[in-house]
C-alpha cells in the first residue's frame, strides 16, 4: 500500500514538474517574442539620451537632442499641422462612424449590405490602393492637394475603425433601454442623444482615440494626398530618415512613442470590462 502511494505521489510530482516546465517554456517563448517586438523601440529611446548620436557606445546622458527638438520652429509647425488634422479627422470620423454603426444596427434600408461590405473593404484594402484612389479622385475634381484633401482622406479612413469599435459595443447593448425609450415617446434623435450616446460613450471614446492615432501616424495615404504646402509629421519623419539619420530623430521618435503609449493605455482602459458601465448587468 505504502509503495503504491509513493509511486502515485512520485508520478503526480513528475507530472507537476512537467507542467511547470511547460509553463516556463511557454513564458520563455512569449518573452522572446516580446523582446523581438520591443528591443528596437527601447534602443531608440535609450539612444535619444546618448551624447554621441552616431555611435552605439554610451558616451553619457544628455537632454541635448530634446532641447534641439523643442527649439525647432519648423518642426513645431509640422506638429501643429498633424495635431489639427488628427483632432478634426478623429472628431468627424467618430461622428460619421458612430452614425454608420447606429444606422446599420437599427434600421433596414436599401443598400444596407452594400454599405456593410464597403466598410469591411475599407478596413482590408491596402492603404496604398486607397491612397491612389483618392489621388485620382481629387485630381479629377480639380481639388488641389493640401489641407482639405488630407482632411477628407483622413476622415474617410477613420470611419470604418470607429464603426467596428462602436458596432461591437452595440451588439452587447441591452435593447430594452431603446424599447423603453420608444414606448415613452422618444423620437429617434432623442433615443440617439439620450440613450445610445451615453451607453456607447466608452466605445465612442476608444474609437476617437484610435482614429486620432491612425491619423497622426498615417504615412501611406497622406503621402499621396498631401501637397508641398501642407507638411505633416509622419511624412517629415520619413524624409528625415531618408536623408540620413539626423541625431534628433531618436528624440522625436521617442516623444511620439510615449505619446502613442499614453493614448493606447487610455483606450485599452476604456475598452476593458464593458459590463460594468453600460447597464448590461441589469439583464
Amino acid at each position: 500500500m505504502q509503495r503504491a502511494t509513493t509511486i502515485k505521489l512520485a508520478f503526480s510530482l513528475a507530472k507537476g514538474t512537467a507542467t511547470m516546465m511547460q509553463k516556463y517554456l511557454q513564458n520563455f517563448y512569449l518573452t522572446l517574442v516580446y523582446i523581438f517586438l520591443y528591443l528596437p523601440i527601447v534602443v531608440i529611446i535609450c539612444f535619444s539620451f546618448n551624447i554621441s548620436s552616431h555611435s552605439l557606445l554610451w558616451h553619457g546622458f544628455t537632454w541635448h537632442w530634446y532641447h534641439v527638438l523643442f527649439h525647432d520652429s519648423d518642426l513645431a509647425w509640422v506638429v501643429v499641422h498633424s495635431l489639427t488634422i488628427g483632432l478634426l479627422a478623429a472628431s468627424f470620423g467618430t461622428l460619421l462612424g458612430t452614425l454608420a454603426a447606429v444606422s446599420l444596427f437599427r434600421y433596414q434600408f436599401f443598400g444596407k449590405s452594400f454599405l456593410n461590405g464597403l466598410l469591411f473593404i475599407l478596413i482590408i484594402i491596402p492603404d496604398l490602393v486607397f491612397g491612389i484612389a483618392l489621388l485620382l479622385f481629387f485630381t479629377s475634381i480639380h481639388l488641389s492637394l493640401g489641407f482639405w484633401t488630407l482632411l477628407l482622406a483622413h476622415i474617410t479612413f477613420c470611419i470604418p475603425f470607429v464603426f467596428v469599435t462602436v458596432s461591437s459595443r452595440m451588439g452587447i447593448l441591452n435593447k430594452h433601454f431603446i424599447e423603453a425609450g420608444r414606448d415613452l415617446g422618444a423620437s429617434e434623435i432623442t433615443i440617439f442623444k439620450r440613450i445610445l450616446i451615453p451607453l456607447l460613450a466608452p466605445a465612442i471614446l476608444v474609437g476617437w482615440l484610435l482614429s486620432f492615432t491612425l491619423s497622426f501616424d498615417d504615412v501611406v495615404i497622406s503621402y499621396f494626398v498631401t501637397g508641398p504646402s501642407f507638411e505633416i509629421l509622419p511624412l517629415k519623419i520619413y524624409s528625415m530618415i531618408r536623408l540620413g539619420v539626423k541625431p534628433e530623430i531618436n528624440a522625436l521618435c521617442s516623444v511620439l512613442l510615449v505619446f502613442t503609449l499614453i493614448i493606447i493605455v487610455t483606450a485599452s482602459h476604456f475598452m476593458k470590462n464593458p459590463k460594468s458601465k453600460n447597464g448590461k448587468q441589469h439583464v
Partner: protein
Amino acid sequence: MKIMKFKYFSINLISLWLIALATIPLLLILITSFLAHDDSHLILWHFTLSNYVYFFHPIYFKILWLSLKLSVNCTILCLLIGYPAAFIIARSHGSLKNLFLLLMIIPFWTSSLIRTYAILTILKTKGLLNSALLALGIIHHPIQLIYTNTAVLVAVVYNLLPFMIFPLYSNIEKLDTRLLDAARDLGAGKIKIFKAIILPLTMPGIMAGTLLVFLPAMTLFYIPVLVGGAKSLLLGNLVESQFLEMHNWPGGAATSIVLTLFMLLLIFIYTRFARGKQRQELL
C-alpha cells in the same frame, strides 16, 4: 414624419460620404487602368488593355513574383512565430493575460514608420546586432544586413507580427476546451488533437491574420526604401514609382487592380472559412 428625420439624415449622410470618397475613387482606379497616357497628359480618354498586357512583360512579372514570394514568406513566418504566442496568451489567466494583451496592443497601434526606423537601427552595419555579434566573437567583421532582401523580410515581419497575433488570439480564445478534454479522454495524442481539432477550429483566425498580413507585406513601400534591398522589390514600390516618378497613372492603376484582385481572392477564401459574424474578429 419628424420622427424619421434622424434616420434618413444619418443614412443619407453616411451613404453619400462613402459613395463620394470611397466608391467613386475606387471605381476611378478601375477606369483609369483601361486608359492610355502620353508625355503631356497624365490620362488620355482612349480605351486600351496595354496596361495589363505590360504586366506579362518579364520585368514586371519578376517584380510580381518577388513581391509574392516576400509576402508568402512573411505570412508563413508571422504564422509560425505568432501562432504559439497567440495560443499562450489565450491560455494564460488573470492580470498576466491583461499584461500580455496590452504588450501586444501597443506595437499594433504604434506608428509603423517609427517601428521600421527602430528595426533599422538594429540592422545597421554599425547597429546593435552587428556590435553584439562582434562583441561575442561570433563574427569578426560587420556583416552586411541592410540593403539585402532578408533585411526587408525581417522588417516586414517585425511590422506585421502583431497583425497576425491579434486575430489568432481572438479566435483561439473562443476555442471550446471541453472538446480538447473529450479528445484526450478518447485517447487522442497531442499531435492528433492539434491536427483534428485545434487547427480546423482556428482556421478562421489563421485566414483573418493572413488577410491582415499578406497584402500590407506587398504594399508597405517605405520599408524597402528605408531598409534597402532590391530597389523595386514590392508591388507597392512599383505603384509608387509609376505614380510619382514615371507619371504613368494608368499603369499604376492597373498594378493596383492586380493588388485588389489578390485582396478579393483572399476575402473570398476568408469568407468561406468564417461564415457569418466573425468578420469583426479582424480587429
